[in-house]
């Protein structure tokens, strides 16, 4: 479970996040939705520790990521997997070595076991046979699936996905959504997905947080979102 409390963040003189608080349950796909520029990505970057909030705390089962140092911080990071908007695969490595990378860096398994784990992860995302391909040889959807395989290689407790469907066709989007949801339930991971894709909200949104201009405006589930009385969320829904 991840809990965020009173997160504030500003750049220069512009305040982007105005005291957001929420909790994201384990074993559920938690979605953060909102218009472009609403602060979703900044919030996610604060949650994963790529940005430090000006105020507030981010607790991973009681551990504040912004107050951990040294081995404790590294240990927590090994429990995290992230799927970036552009997949962020290492373009100097083939698909297999991208998935092997976190295992080689942090796992105490033998190389043979690491290889087995990497192949299992690729099989899990339906990329058997693409091991030797370079990221530039893959389609957008395949890149995202390879990035998911890399994210789950170390069996993370927390999974983060930033706009996982951006640039994908609707069918590929649903495949990626399905994978994220299945993996979340299979391993009981706390998953947070940043999206503005209503297909994802309706399909996998077990818990939804709507952000408007850096403020948390609404929380609920994908099933109840249509009954919202929040004017900004209503406007958002009417335009997608």
């Amino acid at each position, binding site marked *: 479970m991840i809990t965020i409390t009173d997160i504030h963040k500003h750049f220069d003189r512009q305040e982007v996040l105005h005291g957001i608080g929420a909790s994201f349950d384990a074993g559920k796909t938690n979605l953060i939705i909102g218009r472009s520029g609403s602060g979703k990505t900044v919030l996610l970057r604060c949650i994963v520790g*790529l940005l430090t909030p000006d105020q507030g705390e981010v607790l991973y089962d009681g551990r504040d990521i912004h107050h951990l140092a040294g081995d404790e911080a*590294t240990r927590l*990071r090994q429990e995290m997997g992230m799927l970036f908007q552009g997949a*962020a695969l290492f373009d100097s490595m083939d698909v297999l070595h991208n998935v092997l990378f976190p295992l*080689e860096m942090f796992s105490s398994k033998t190389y043979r076991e690491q290889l087995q784990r990497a192949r299992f992860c690729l099989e899990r995302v339906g990329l058997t046979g693409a091991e030797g391909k370079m990221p530039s040889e893959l389609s957008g959807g395949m890149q995202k699936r390879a990035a998911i395989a890399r994210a789950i290689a170390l069996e993370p407790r927390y999974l*983060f996905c930033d706009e996982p469907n951006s640039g994908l066709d609707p069918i590929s989007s649903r495949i990626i959504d399905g994978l994220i949801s299945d993996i979340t339930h299979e391993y009981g991971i706390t998953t947070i997905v940043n999206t503005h894709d209503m297909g994802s909200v309706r399909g996998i949104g077990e818990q939804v947080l709507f952000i408007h201009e850096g403020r948390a405006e609404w929380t609920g589930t994908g099933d109840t979102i249509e009954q919202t009385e929040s004017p900004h969320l209503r406007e958002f829904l009417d335009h997608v």
Partner: protein
Amino acid sequence: MLYKSLHSLGNYLLLMRRTFTRPQRGRIFWQQFVREFYQLGFNSLFIVILMSFFIGALLCVQIKINIWSPWMPRFTIGYAMREVILLEFASSIICIILAGKVGSNIASEIGTMRVTQQIDALDVMGVNSANYILLPKIVAMVSAIPLLVTFSIAAGFVGAYVVCWAGGFLSMSDLTYGLQYSYDNWHLWSGYVKALVFAFIIASVSGYFGYTVQGGSIEVGRAGTNAVVVSSVLILFTDLLLTNLLMT
């Protein structure tokens, strides 16, 4: 301007502090080191040899045409050429050329990793991205530079011999005597010492510009240009300091 420069210097020093830590996985560091040594060092060998060969030849021709007089001993041409090659060309000028070739390569490679979020991916995994990306490049560049300087000196001398033989400017024995005349071993070593410092500047400054890119492809291109300009200026400035320090 001053504030911006000091801010950049502070950020550079902080980045170096993160870079110079123990690698998280020694085996991966050595794999990276070998790859970078090949890319940054071995792949620069041809351009270094080519340029040094022609500069060695041209120095001979220029000294013969513009400086030489009947009052000067003939071996002076070889002597002057040797001093220029050992003291400045093989270390400083070759490093400025490498700042253009290797510096822009490092800055654009790391800058592209930054804008495509590959560095963020490393950070989220718990990898010290500065150490993982920059340290092998800096160590490889500093390790490769003595090799490049040695080949540069040799190619410069070969160029001089070839032009003297082909153009009849000077007899082989006069050139050989000039190259050996009043030889001071320290001139050779000071060139190596300077080159080691310049190699560090090229790799670390270019790495800094790439690592701190914000934006897209235009900023990556700009980082490449800035890396070359700043590295070259720093090399010249450090050359002045080191020459005073090492030669006096």
